[in-house]
């Protein structure tokens, strides 16, 4: 399968549509720099591999992610189109790759193949057609079917890439890929992983064995703190404790009047569940103890009433006693009233006498004043009778009335008043005592009625009997209270005992469980997962050992095949290298084999690596020789029959360019060659010194308006 022609349109420097035939054994594109010759080779790659050469790399190191169109064509809406006309075993076919001018970055190209029957396949079907037709993948193509100076040189200079390309040259790609696949799985690491898994499981198993023993020891220490000796850590003791718990709870329930359900004492789980709930049931649900509070309240009420009664009764007795004493000490109420009346009368008399004395004084004073005014010293101003010494006598009389009589009358008044006051006080005391006695008696009656109500007795019962009945009933209540308090206290004690026994039972059950676990080791081999694990390990071990075996076998076979193919490769490599360089240095493929790896190098006759001492021209020549060797081999074993070389004459002098022309002619015996080169010795040699049919295309100057153009095209 080889291309017969290429048509490009809007591809990089190529603007308008151009068609170039490629059916001659040698096609040369000759042009000065920048006229579109490299773009033409890139167009073939893009048409065949699409995004692989634009996104992942063009095959030219410095041109990764190159743009499909020149930037000067922003307004051009026509799509980029590259078409390859192919000659296949079935007939001619046409591959077309098209991309619209405004396609988004991730938008797929329009890729179609028109096969020899005229059927047009598109997208994946077209890609599949290409693969089925034996088209090499991009990696193989860039290594064996195209030559870009920098990339080819790099592949020869780098030790790793040189080894890889020699692997391909030896036809051992599959060997290398197989060994790389096996190495990527890392079979030896699988055994390490298996060992780690088993070791981790062993560790867990040891821990599982030690843990119950350790737990047993901890429980025994707890038992010692609970004062349980080793003999008590037994199943029979646990049964005894369960029986005791249930029996004592039943007894308590009866005393408390509780209707409760009790578990079968032989059912350990049921007993455990019940035992945790029993304290709450016993503490809060006893009908017998419900009355205790009522009794306590009634007793308190009794106590208060009796105290109150005793207080008011005592007060009453006291008042009665005082009243009696007061009465016994003097008059009764009537006598005291009479005495007050008498005292009051006497005071009135004293007051009257005093007032009369004062009136008499005033009359005499007035008379004396009238005598003095009339200047009749002995004439009575009333009867006008002369009374000798009247004025003096009046003076003496006034003095007497004002002094002695007045004092006596005043004293009598004071005495009468004092007596009245005393008499009144005595009367008030008696009245107050009588009133207080009545009040105290009322209170006694009131308390007595309350006691009657409390004791529910009728009015005919005497006070003495009421008190006696009260005391009797109080004692009866106290007796009830004492009994219920004893029951409550007993209940609390029993609950406490119950909880302590529960703790003991819990500890014994824990100990029994731990002892069972300590005595019985887990039999992993009996578990279904154990056999599953072993099956998986066996399978993985088998898989790993098979992989290791295959890896080792593949390495041995690769080594053997390397040796057997080396001579053939050396011959082809030597042939092309000698043609280009006219140098008879025998470069040979050398195989380096270690336990794990196989690598290749090019060595000279002395067996030393040849590349480090080569000059630029020799390296270029070597990279071309390596490519041509591969191309020849691929042309003989694969269907693709085109090698495209871009500017292969760099660094080569005229002699070597002449050699290169001979090498190209030699390779054209096996496949078509498309050579892009600047005008010079190589183009001259290809034009004039090659005997094979050839198509010579000369490109004209590139212009902004027309892009690349074909200046001249001849077939020789």
């Amino acid at each position, binding site marked *: 399968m080889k291309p017969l022609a290429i048509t490009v349109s809007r591809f990089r420097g190529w603007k308008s549509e151009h068609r170039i035939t490629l059916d001659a054994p040698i096609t040369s594109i000759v042009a000065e720099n920048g006229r579109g010759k490299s773009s033409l080779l890139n167009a073939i790659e893009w048409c065949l591999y699409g995004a692989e050469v634009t996104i992942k790399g063009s095959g030219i190191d410095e041109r990764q992610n190159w743009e499909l169109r020149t930037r000067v064509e922003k307004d051009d809406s026509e799509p980029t189109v590259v078409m390859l006309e192919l000659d296949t075993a079935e007939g001619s076919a046409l591959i077309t790759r098209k991309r619209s001018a405004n396609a988004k970055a991730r938008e797929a190209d329009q890729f179609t193949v028109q096969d020899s029957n005229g059927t047009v396949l598109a997208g994946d079907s077209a890609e599949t057609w290409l693969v089925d037709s034996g088209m090499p993948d991009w990696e193989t193509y860039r290594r064996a079917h195209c030559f870009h100076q920098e990339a080819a040189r790099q592949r020869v200079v780098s030790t790793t890439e040189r080894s890889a390309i020699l692997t391909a040259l030896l036809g*051992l790609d*599959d*060997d290398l*890929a*197989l060994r790389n*696949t*096996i190495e*990527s*799985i890392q079979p030896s690491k*699988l055994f390490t*992983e*298996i060992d780690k*898994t088993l070791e*981790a*499981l062993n560790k*867990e*198993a040891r*821990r*599982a064995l030690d843990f119950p023993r350790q737990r047993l020891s901890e429980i025994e220490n707890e038992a010692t703190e609970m004062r349980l000796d080793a003999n008590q850590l037994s199943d029979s003791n646990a049964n005894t404790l369960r029986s005791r718990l249930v029996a004592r709870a039943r007894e308590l329930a009866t005393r408390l009047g509780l209707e409760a359900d009790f578990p079968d004492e032989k059912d350990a789980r049921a007993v455990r569940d019940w035992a945790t709930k029993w304290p709450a049931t016993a503490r809060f649900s006893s009908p017998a103890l419900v009355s205790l509070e009522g009794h306590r309240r009634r007793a308190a009420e009794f106590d208060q009433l009796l105290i109150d009664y005793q207080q008011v009764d005592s007060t009453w007795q006291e008042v009665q006693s005082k009243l009696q004493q007061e009465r016994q000490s003097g008059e009764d109420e009537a006598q005291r009233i009479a005495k007050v009346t008498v005292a009051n009368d006497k005071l009135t008399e004293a007051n009257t006498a005093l007032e009369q004395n004062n009136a008499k004084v005033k009359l005499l004073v007035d008379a004396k004043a009238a005598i003095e005014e009339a200047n009749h010293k002995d004439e009575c101003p009333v009867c006008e009778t002369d009374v000798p010494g009247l004025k003096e006598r009046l003076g003496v009389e006034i003095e007497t009335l004002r002094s002695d009589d007045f004092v006596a009358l005043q004293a009598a008044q004071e005495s009468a008043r004092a007596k009245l006051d005393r008499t009144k006080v005595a009367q008030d005391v008696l009245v107050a005592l009588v009133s207080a006695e009545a009040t105290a008696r009322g209170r006694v009656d009131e308390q007595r009625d309350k006691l009657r109500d409390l004791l529910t007795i009728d009015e005919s019962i005497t006070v003495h009997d009421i008190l006696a009945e009260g005391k009797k009933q109080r004692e009866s209540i106290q007796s009830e209270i004492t009994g219920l308090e004893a029951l409550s206290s007993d209940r609390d004690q029993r609950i406490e005992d119950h909880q302590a026994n529960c703790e003991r039972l819990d500890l014994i059950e824990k100990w029994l469980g731990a002892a069972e*676990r300590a005595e019985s080791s*887990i039999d*992993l081999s009996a*578990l279904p*997962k*154990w056999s*599953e*694990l072993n099956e*998986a*390990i066996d*399978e*993985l071990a*088998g*898989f790993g*050992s*098979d*992989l290791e*075996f*295959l890896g080792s*076998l*593949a390495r041995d*076979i690769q080594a053997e*095949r390397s040796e057997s193919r080396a001579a053939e490769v050396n011959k082809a490599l030597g042939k092309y290298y000698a043609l280009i360089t006219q140098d008879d240095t025998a470069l040979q493929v050398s195989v380096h084999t270690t336990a794990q790896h196989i690598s290749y190098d090019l060595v000279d006759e002395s067996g030393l690596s040849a590349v480090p001492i080569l000059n630029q021209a020799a390296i270029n020549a070597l990279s071309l020789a390596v490519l041509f060797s591969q191309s020849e081999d691929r042309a003989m074993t694969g269907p693709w029959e085109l090698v495209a070389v871009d500017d292969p004459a760099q660094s080569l002098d005229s002699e070597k360019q002449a050699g290169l022309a001979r090498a190209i002619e030699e390779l054209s015996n096996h496949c078509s060659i498309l050579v892009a080169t600047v005008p010079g010795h190589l183009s001259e040699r290809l034009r004039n010194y090659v005997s094979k049919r050839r198509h010579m295309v000369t490109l004209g100057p590139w212009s902004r308006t027309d892009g690349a153009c074909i200046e001249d095209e001849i077939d020789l």
Partner: protein
Amino acid sequence: MNLWSVLEERIVQQGVRIEERLNLLNELKVDHETGGVSVTERKEALVLRIDDAAACLTETLRG
């Protein structure tokens, strides 16, 4: 004779686990030709089975 045929022949000659190794070789060949990863997936599935079984056993041991 290509690589795969040579490998098949050597596996048979070796006479150990012939069926398993031929199957594995075929799997590798198919992966190689199709760009598949079935061998890697098989390894990962086996590792996962071991991890699951080991985790289950560990859980059992821890009670």
